[in-house]
């Protein structure tokens, strides 16, 4: 296999350590995300999944290490990355419309005091259409359902027209229709040659949705193609036996053991 030149690697993470008040959240992460892939990040709660994405975006201070985007370390390089934060990270009562939120995705391309032009509005509308929210363009964002809000966030990232997408739990708390719509868009982005990195919480759908998977728990447990990486052994190493406990829980729920005990009380 030939070595890929640095400027073709969308995101490279070097010796990255992040700590909150002396407690490490990410420890010595060394990764090279491949171009044009759908990549899932999974791991238990508090494993540092969101923190890794925020660290790549320069939103949390790094204790050590650095991130390269297409071989560059400047903040300018971040403009080729679109970030979809967790839905709860913003105030949905903010006085603005769905179209307006999507339009914010264009702000990075505008001059310092420039206003969005007709072309930017056109791109914003197209992005809303792509996520099936074209009819809701003028709705105030608090009137949208959780799934619709998530789609608006996705449309905003699309409007940025970048080559790399980082998404923090886009499937959290959305309806089945939205989940399907998001997956379709992820595949389209990949077909266009974009790299999409998604923090994901549902282990069952990992093989269906992603080509590559990063198993994370403070450190990189395993990273590679899903077929070879998403194994029981690696999952056990990531979840440290708690996975058994989890499946045990679902098993017992299924057998109705707990509801029976509840009735006995």
């Amino acid at each position, binding site marked *: 296999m030939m070595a890929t030149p640095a400027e073709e690697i969308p995101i490279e993470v070097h010796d990255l350590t992040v700590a909150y008040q002396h407690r490490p959240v990410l420890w010595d992460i060394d990764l090279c995300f491949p171009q044009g892939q759908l990549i899932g990040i999974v791991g238990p709660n508090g494993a540092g999944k969101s923190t890794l994405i925020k660290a790549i975006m320069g939103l949390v201070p790094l204790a050590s290490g650095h991130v390269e985007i297409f071989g560059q370390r400047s903040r300018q390089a971040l403009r080729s990355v679109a970030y979809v934060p967790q839905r709860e990270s913003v*105030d949905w009562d903010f006085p*603005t419309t769905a179209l307006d939120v999507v339009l*914010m995705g264009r702000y990075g391309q505008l001059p310092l005091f420039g206003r969005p032009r007709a072309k930017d509005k056109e791109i914003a509308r197209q992005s809303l259409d792509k996520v099936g929210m074209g009819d809701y363009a003028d709705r*105030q964002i608090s009137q949208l359902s959780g799934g619709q809000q998530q789609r608006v966030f996705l449309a905003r990232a699309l409007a940025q027209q970048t080559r790399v997408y980082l998404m923090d739990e886009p499937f959290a708390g959305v309806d089945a229709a939205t989940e399907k719509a998001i997956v379709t868009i992820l595949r389209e982005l990949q077909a266009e040659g974009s790299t999409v990195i998604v923090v994901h919480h549902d282990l069952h759908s990992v093989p269906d949705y992603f080509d590559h998977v990063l198993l994370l728990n403070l450190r990189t447990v395993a990273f590679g193609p899903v077929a070879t990486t998403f194994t029981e052994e690696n999952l056990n190493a990531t979840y440290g036996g708690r996975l058994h406990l989890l499946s045990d829980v679902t098993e017992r729920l299924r057998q109705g053991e707990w509801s029976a005990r509840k009735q006995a009380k």
Partner: protein
Amino acid sequence: MMSMDSVWIVLIGSLVATSCALVGCFLVLRRLSMLGDAISHAVLPGIVVAFMLTGSRNIGFMLVGAMAMGMLTAFLTDVLSRFGKLQSDAAMGVTFTWLFAIGVILVSKFTGMVDLDVDCVLYGEIVLAPLDVIEWGGRNFGPRAIWLTGIVCVANLLFVTLGYKQLKVCAFDAGLAASIGISVSLWHYLLMGFVSLTTVASFESVGAILVVAMLIVPPNTAYLLTDRLSYMLLIAVGVGILSALGGFLLATWLDGAIAAAMAVVSGVLYTLAALLGPRHGVLARHRAHRNIELHVEEADELGSELRS
């Protein structure tokens, strides 16, 4: 028929209200209302020091001194909450009371030397504002307060129109702002700087305490009446100006304090908006709720008819 002085008073009040409403909207949306309160008090030592250094009430020096103090307040609050392990509201409380107390000491200590009085700073003397005119080369250039509030009002208008997109995205989603190369902390400190300017300009007319009402109440009223940021800014300015005019009329009628009457009127307007607002108002919500209940009842009736 209003006298010339009355026109000046209403005009000063309106300029103050406009400035306050513009920056106030962003304070409210960023949930930093009380930082406006903190800054309005903390700028006092800045003004006194500018006063003592120049020996005059030079508008330029006062504004620079105040702007510096406003940013210092925002900075100290940030440092205390980050390194002093204080909650951000506690950090704010520590910072602004401390700076304000220094200001009070300075005023009382040098009260003979400077033409500044604590009551005026706290409560404002808008009645006296028209008397303090700028004369230059024997010509009357109008009240000093008009110039002060007018300059600041224009500055705020420029700030909010030119920086509209940055202020908006920083208020809505700081993460996005940072990722597309907008410096969140730069715009935070700029906003704090303009809040300080606004406060100083409003000091002599409405005072340090009531300026908070002008910063917070009209934007909150506007927030209840619209779902668009641009309209919110316009409505807030409108409500502010209406409060200034209404307050003046109320004070004249009652023969009471004008600045306080302005704050009272803005409070009344807020209450009206909270009750009668088109979507967030109590009545509208009640009606919407009632409509849903009716729909459910109708559906239930239809259901039982179909079943029978």
